[in-house]
């Protein structure tokens, strides 16, 4: 029990120590060489800006977080559904998949202005961009996972005369879960990128808007403050999916522990 706790402490302590060394070097370097704050503000200056108006920052963060989660959610639902259709019906695979790959190779950022024309300046175009950037990872990983069932397992299902729906629900979807979660982690970080891009193009709110307006007034500490929040948000969201993965795949988690 104590060794488990100590292990957990060490797992958290080491990355924290790394971050601390990084921040200290930054602070000392900036002071030592007297770098102007407009170029590179010291961490203390960034922290001051954050502490000065925490509620305002929280509001902007909540807006960006909302866009990200909405885009991610739609990408997950649509991505999993699309992957199932494509894997289950070969005709749809040949009909739609090349088109999907072609659409994906268009730089999504280039579509942002188009979305403004279509959806106006509210949350919708930003969610659409977040969705578009994130969905590819979900589709590719889910499709891969659905096809990863062992041939013996498929043979077993055939000898048991199971319906296609049963095979999908009892076997293929479970095989897909570990791959799906890997895809969701990538999709989450990409959805955050999409949200910021959307806010860059047109927004009155959100962290993307904060970065853009602060840059306009050469308020570099504020730009950094927003970037710091984005970094923390990214790490937290990925960690959240990690927790969900462990809860959803108890057999897989136990397996990893066994291997250690």
């Amino acid at each position, binding site marked *: 029990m104590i060794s488990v706790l100590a292990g957990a402490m060490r797992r958290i302590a080491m990355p924290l120590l790394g971050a601390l060394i990084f921040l200290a070097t930054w602070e000392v370097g900036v002071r030592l060489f007297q770098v102007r704050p407009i170029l590179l503000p010291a961490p203390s200056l960034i922290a001051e800006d954050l502490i000065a108006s925490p509620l305002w920052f929280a509001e902007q963060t909540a807006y960006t977080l909302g866009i990200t989660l909405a885009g991610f959610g739609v990408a997950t639902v649509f991505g999993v559904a699309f992957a199932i259709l494509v894997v289950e019906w070969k005709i749809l695979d040949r009909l739609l998949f090349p088109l999907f790959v072609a659409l994906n190779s268009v730089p999504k950022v280039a579509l942002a202005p188009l979305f403004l024309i279509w959806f106006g300046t509210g949350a919708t175009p930003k969610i659409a961009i977040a969705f578009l950037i994130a969905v590819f990872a979900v589709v590719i990983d889910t499709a891969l996972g659905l096809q990863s069932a*062992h041939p*013996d*397992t498929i*043979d*077993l*299902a*055939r*000898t*048991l*005369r*199971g*319906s296609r729906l*049963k095979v999908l629900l*009892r*076997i293929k979807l*479970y095989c897909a*879960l570990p791959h799906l979660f890997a895809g969701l982690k990538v999709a989450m970080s990409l959805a955050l990128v999409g949200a910021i891009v959307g806010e860059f193009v047109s927004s009155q709110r959100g962290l993307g808007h904060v970065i853009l307006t602060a840059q306009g007034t050469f308020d570099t500490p504020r730009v950094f403050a927003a970037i710091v929040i984005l970094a923390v948000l990214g790490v937290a969201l990925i960690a959240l999916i990690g927790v969900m993965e462990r809860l959803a*795949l*108890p*057999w*897989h988690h*136990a*397996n990893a522990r*066994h291997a250690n």
Partner: protein
Amino acid sequence: MIEASDVIKRYGGVDGVTALQGISLDIAEGEFISLVGPSGCGKSTFLRCLAGLEVPTSGRLLLDGASIKGPPERLGMAFQRDALLEWFDVLENVLLPADFGGYGKKKYEARARELLRMVGLDAFTSAYPQALSGGMRQRVAICRSLLLEPRLLLMDEPFGALDALTRDQINVDLRRMWSRHRMTVVFVTHSITEAVFLSSRVVVFTPRPGRIAEDIAIDLPADRKLAMRESAEFGAYTSRIRGLFEQMGLIHD
């Protein structure tokens, strides 16, 4: 129950591989038949044809007088790899045939528990497969294949990956289950001893392309104990089969 006449199976086109070269074999209801032969002799292919997982290239393969098209009803199958579903616990795995067949899991739960009790796994009903040893996993797989009281049980080298001790025990378990239920079993194995111990008939295959070298009825007492393997009669059967392998140039002394 099963009639095979001149069953041929080829893979690939003109210069493909011939896996089975004219297999003719009749299997009566309630027999325990072992197919032995070298690796790649097509015995597993024949089993897969019986299971309806493969279609013979030519020849007739009948089950109860009708040609086999797809997996038949009341079929149990055990695989080399146990093919347990890692995401379901032991009980759910054993109940899988009831679930897939649409017979209702509730109705079969008592039977599943009874089967698990017979192989000494009643304490593990809610464990995940990866917590079990190889022998325990294979026992779960056998319980699964027996759940629906199959008329025909097909086993494809199910015990190949087990250690010798576990294998002996599981052989005894399987033999006992067969004496009780008397389903028809077709059992593919590499082990001559295992084949003679379990079977009422042993069919020896030649190397690829697979043909039947000999069909040997095993006339040993029905109540088989492991110690019986040291008896002279038992030894006579095993050395006869080993002799066939020597004639085919598969083993050298």
